[in-house]
């Protein structure tokens, strides 16, 4: 295949590439997840090290949790390959002092060629499961693959 046919194929490939998107890489959420405040530090240390939290979760009275949420994701050719992964960083504060620190991975997903995928438990009925695993799988267009 030479000349015009080759150029046509190359052009079609380019259009496909542009039409379906190419590469994106993101990481949103607090960037400092190495220099953490310590148990016993005053509450203000959390702000000094990590800035504004994404959420403050009340526990009781003067006890609450500062939460920072992080997502990393990348996509290649839109529908061909995608991945994401989650972390959260949290501080328990009691009476103005840090009483607990946690940095945990919170799951990840990959996807190849619009494969079926499964929601995080918090996005599912019943949270920890919905009794029928097949019902939790959706296709690339967001439709339930199995279900009512």
């Amino acid at each position, binding site marked *: 295949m030479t000349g015009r046919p080759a150029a046509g194929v190359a052009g079609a490939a380019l259009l496909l590439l542009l039409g379906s998107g190419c590469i*994106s890489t993101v990481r949103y959420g607090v960037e*400092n997840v190495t220099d953490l405040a310590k148990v016993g530090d005053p509450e203000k240390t959390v702000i000094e090290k990590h800035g*504004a939290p*994404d959420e403050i979760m009340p526990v009781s009275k003067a006890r609450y949790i500062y939460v920072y949420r992080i997502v990393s994701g990348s996509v290649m050719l839109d529908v061909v390959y995608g991945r994401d992964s*989650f972390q959260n960083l949290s501080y328990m504060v009691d009476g*103005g002092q840090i009483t607990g620190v946690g940095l945990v991975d919170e799951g990840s997903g990959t*996807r190849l060629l619009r494969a079926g995928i499964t*929601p995080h438990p918090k996005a599912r009925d019943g949270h920890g499961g919905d009794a029928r695993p097949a019902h939790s799988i959706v296709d690339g267009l967001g439709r339930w693959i199995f279900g009512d």
Partner: protein
Amino acid sequence: MTRRLDLLIALAVLVATLGSGCVSTQRYGTARATEKDLVDEGATDGAVISAHGVPDQIIRVYEGPAYGTEGPQVEKLLFVYRIVDAGSFGTFYTYDEFTNVCYFIVNGKVEGRGIARGGSGASILYGDRFFPHPRGRGGHGGDDDPTGGSR
């Protein structure tokens, strides 16, 4: 014939480039966001406003007895300033990055403050699948779409 084809291709590329936009750069959010712009600990919350203007968000952290059931009353607030830097070269390359300036205010005085980077993203050649911040995603810890979609 070849020269005419070349001209047509060049014209098509030019039109595609113009149609998809050229260069843009933005930086939105308070312009005073360096370490030297920060108000010192012990200053009043009014000094924060004087230094940075109106905040983008005020988060009410806590109001009540300092130690739960006893102690003096405290009111804890966060004054938050959010900044985005972004740029694009048409749709061939785009990027964004986020920073926030945050003040910890206790009973009207600055008790702590910080400048923190809040992540960034980049894409090339229309690689613009939308990855929302975790706060914007169902269930926070994932939304069932590793390619970034949000439901």
